[in-house]
Structures are given as structure tokens and as C-alpha cells.
């Protein structure tokens, strides 16, 4: 409940390790709210979030941060950090209990992975929106670098990670997320692009007005019926967007 409005109700979601879970749904369906509940940023009035069978609230925030990183939708920064410094914040966050000896190399590697390895001393504030989003992704990656650490899986929560990216980088980011999941990590991403979600996610959760409308493998969940019921798309609109492509 926020401002007297119920944002989520009966939204049950399991995000197992090794699985890339995508949350899709129309604007205002509660996707980001659900992610905020999962990350512990918001507390649900009813219901609970469990991590390894224990309620999330029973963990200390450092413990959670050591195995779960969150990519925010937008991030403003009015201080002159360079790319390297922003990414290094992920490593030096409250999460890292043991020292990492080669911070510089880890940071460069993370920047390489999001395609920004060239100018690590550039000022963050001078980047474009899409580049900023990728720097943030590199920072988040540094926080939970190993998908599985000491036998315990880590989790990446991404809130619309592709919203300001061009097509090539959208695919790059989703591939990165998929690789993270197939290496044993847990990935939960709020996505807008249903096509990309169907291609890269193992599991799709469709939210409608705060409820889970459907949940399952993409080919089962993404159907004409779902598109018209959840997004209110007419047959012509579906035809226009997807054309001759086969949709169940």
C-alpha cells in the first residue's frame, strides 16, 4: 500500500538460482514495486520475502548486499566521479568483507564487459544516458562478481536495464544477464520489451494491476490472449507489431 493505493496483491514469485526471471507488464502494474519488495527496499504490508527459506528482514543489510545487487532505473550523480571511481564503489561497498587485492583490474574487467573499457578516467556526469546505465551495471556487477560464491548463489536485480540503451547494447546486457544466470546466479529483471524477454529469459512473470497474471516459460506465457488481456492490445495492433511472426 502506498498513498492509499494497493500496488501489489497476491504477487507470488519464486526466483531460483540459475534462472533468468523477467517481470513484464504494462505501466503501473507494480513491476518496480515488486522488485523493491524483493530487494528489501520496501516492506510489504502483508506477505513476506524469503531468502534461503529465511525472511529477508532477518538478515543484516550487509549480508544481503554481499549476495544481491540492484541496478536502479535511473541514477543521478551530481559529483565529479570518473567511471572507474563509480564502478569501484561497487567493490568497496558495505558488501565486501574480505579485501579485493586487485581493485583496478576488476574495475577494468567490469567496464570491458559493458563495452566501456576505453576511457575509464572520463567523468561520469558527461556520459549519455545509456552509457551511464552501463556504468551502473558494471558497478552492480562488481558488487556480486561471482554468480556463485563459496557455493552460495548471488543475485542480480535489474530494473529496466535496457531502457535507455540502443539495440546492440540491449542485447549485450541481456546476454550478460543470461550468462550470469547460466553460471548459477539468480537474475530478476523488469523488462519492457516482450520480444527480448521471450528470447533471453528462462521464466516470465506477467503482472497486471499488482497481480501475477501469468507465470512460466516465455513460449507458454507470451500469447495473443495474454497481450490482449494484459496490455489491452487489439488484433490489429498485435498484427502491426509482430506481423507474420507466429504467436500462439
Amino acid at each position, binding site marked *: 500500500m502506498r498513498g492509499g493505493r494497493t500496488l501489489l496483491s497476491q504477487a507470488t514469485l519464486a526466483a531460483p538460482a540459475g534462472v533468468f526471471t523477467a517481470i513484464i507488464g504494462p505501466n503501473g502494474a507494480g513491476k518496480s514495486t515488486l522488485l523493491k519488495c524483493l530487494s528489501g527496499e520496501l516492506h510489504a504490508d502483508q506477505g513476506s520475502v524469503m531468502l534461503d527459506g529465511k525472511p529477508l528482514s532477518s538478515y543484516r543489510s*550487509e549480508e544481503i548486499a554481499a549476495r544481491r545487487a540492484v541496478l536502479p532505473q535511473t541514477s543521478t550523480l551530481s559529483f565529479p566521479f570518473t567511471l572507474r571511481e563509480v564502478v569501484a564503489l561497487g567493490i568497496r561497498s558495505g558488501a565486501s568483507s574480505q579485501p579485493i587485492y586487485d581493485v583496478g583490474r576488476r574495475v577494468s574487467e567490469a567496464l570491458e564487459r559493458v563495452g566501456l573499457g576505453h576511457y575509464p578516467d572520463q567523468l561520469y556526469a558527461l556520459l549519455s544516458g545509456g552509457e551511464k546505465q552501463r556504468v551502473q551495471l558494471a558497478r552492480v556487477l562488481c558488487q556480486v562478481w561471482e554468480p556463485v560464491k563459496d557455493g552460495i548463489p548471488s543475485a542480480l536485480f535489474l530494473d529496466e536495464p535496457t531502457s535507455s540503451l540502443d539495440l546492440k547494447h540491449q542485447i549485450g546486457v541481456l546476454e550478460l544477464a543470461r550468462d550470469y544466470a547460466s553460471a548459477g546466479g539468480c537474475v530478476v529483471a523488469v523488462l519492457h520489451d516482450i520480444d527480448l524477454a521471450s528470447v533471453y529469459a528462462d521464466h516470465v512473470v506477467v503482472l497486471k494491476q499488482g497481480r501475477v497474471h501469468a507465470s512460466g516459460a516465455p513460449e507458454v506465457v507470451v500469447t495473443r490472449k495474454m497481450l490482449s488481456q494484459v496490455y489491452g492490445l487489439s488484433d490489429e495492433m498485435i498484427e502491426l507489431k509482430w506481423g507474420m511472426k507466429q504467436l500462439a
Partner: protein
Amino acid sequence: MASVAESFENSSEFGQGATRSPRDFWKSICLPSLAVVFAVVMILSVAIGPTSVSFGALGRWLVSFVGGEALSLRDQVVLFDIRMPRTVLGALIGASLGVAGAMMQGLFRNPLADPGLIGVASGSSLAAVSVIVLASHLPVALAVHAGTYLLPLAAFFGGLVTTLVLYKVSTRGGETSIATMLLAGIALGALTGAVTGLLIFKSDDAQLRDFTFWSMGSLGAATWQRVLSILPFVLALLFSIPFLSKGLNALLLGEAEAFHMGFNTQKLKRILIIVVAAATGAAVSAAGAIGFVGIVVPHLLRLLIGPDHRLLLPCCALLGAALLVAADMVSRSIVAPAELPIGIIMAVIGAPVFLSILLGRRSLISL
């Protein structure tokens, strides 16, 4: 064009270890060089003044502790009872203002936040002025202590209340609106100014002189007792630096982000507000409202070494101390034997820097 592209290629080929940006260079030398600057300024401040005490005499006096020849009584008084407390007080206040400014800017996630500009210092001043007026109604035994102990405490609480009000008014869901913050600061400043004015209107001549001192800022009333009375506040601030730096860095990214990175943001913010209010209160109670140190010092240092608080905050302490002690030297020598209020000197240096932040980094600051 080709050569430019090539040089970029080359620099990336050297790898991270080999390329050193100007920022890396400043980062590696800033702490030791600021320490040297600070030491030099401290020595100069003790050595220079309207009454000439030669460097030789200063050296002899230092030696006299280990059994050298003693100074003349006049020189001893000038050095030990006048210049040294004044210099130490200036250093303590400068360090607090520099660090408090940087911390407040991190708390508000905004490089323009400064305790002097957004009304925190006026809140402290109001509390301090109230104590002065109240003190005349207290029993003599209490009134004597009021100046020493009550004043810094009152200034601390005045600053605390103003900071809390300001934070509540200008922050919604972890996002601080810069425009609201500055405007709320103006409103709070006007309100506390009005009440202070009312108290001045009701005050006698002696109190009036005290108020003038408060509104312009001066280190002229420095005594060892005054140094001792603010020392706990300043030490608390300086000792908090290592514990708050990492959290402040994360806070610059955003409150939710800092939480996701494992920091207890509520606790962090609470501690920051208390520590900043304590430092501002201490500074105001000992030397009145001295503006702009908290904005000039962190700003200059961020240009050179970036905003990483683990290095920025210690540097702010050193540069703030050096700057205020130097400004005080100017204030007492430029129109000697009279004194120019140090607040005037800091405003002359600080206002242009503030404007240049607005002009030069308009793209980085969204109002």
C-alpha cells in the same frame, strides 16, 4: 585526427597500472602537501602579528621547553596567550567547517549545500545569541559557565534543529530537491535572523557588541578556554571521518543505492546530521558565523582529487584549517592594529567560487 586516435589507443594499451591521470597524481600527493602547507601556515600565524616577535625568538621559546633560554614575559604573553590559542582555534574551526561542508554536501547529495548558506549556521547563531541574552538573567555563578559550556551546546542544538527541519522539508523519498533546500534555507535564515534581530533590539550595549561579533565572525576572542570548550565537538567530527567515508560515497549514488550496497542509510543520515550540527555549532559558538569555508574547500579539492570521501574529508580538514588560519592572518594584519572581521574575508573569497560552481558546472547540477 589519426594521431589523436592513435594516442588514445596507446594510452589504453598501457593498461590500468601504467596510465596515470592527473587525478591519480593529485591523489598521491595531496595529503602530504596539504600537511606541509598547514604546518607552514600555523607557524607563520604564530610568528606574524602587529607586535613583532622574531622567528628566532619563536625558536628559542620552543627550545626553552627543553631547557633553553626563556623568552621575555611580553613575548611569552603574546605567543602563548594571544597568538597560539587564536591559531589553534582558527585551525579547529577551519577543519570543522571544511569537513562539515563536505559531509553536508554528501548528505544532501548536492555540491552547493553549506552549513553557512542554508541556514544551519543562523540556527546556531540564534541559539548562541539567546544564551547571551539569557545569561544576563542567570545567577552569576551559572552565567560564568554559560559562556564556556552552554554556548557551544546551545549552538549545537540550534544547528541540529535547523538541519533536521531543512532535511525534512527538502527531501522526499530520499531525493533532495536543491531548489527547495536553498529556498527553505533562505526562509529559515530569515526567520532566525528576525528572532536574532528582536533579541538585539532588546539588548544592552555590551550584548550588542557580542552580537556584532557573531554576525560577522571573528577569532579575536580566542582563549585556551574557548579552544577547550569546542575541542570535544571537533574531535568527534574528525574521529567520525573513517567510519562515515564509505557510507558517504555510497550515498552520493542515491539513498536506495546505498541501501542496496549494504549501508544502513537511516543510521548513516542520522549520524551525519548530528555530527555536522555539532561541528557547525562548535564553530559558530567560538567564532560566529563564518561562511563559505564549507563550500570553497571541498569544491577545490573535488576538482583535484575527486569526491572520494576517504581522501576528501581528511584533505578538507587540513585545507580548511590552513585557509581559515591564513584568512585570519590577513584579517588582523591588513588594517592593523584594527581587525577586519574574518567573515568578510571569507565572503570575498567564497562568493566568487560559489558563482563559478554555478556557472562552470551548470550541466552537473540540476536545480
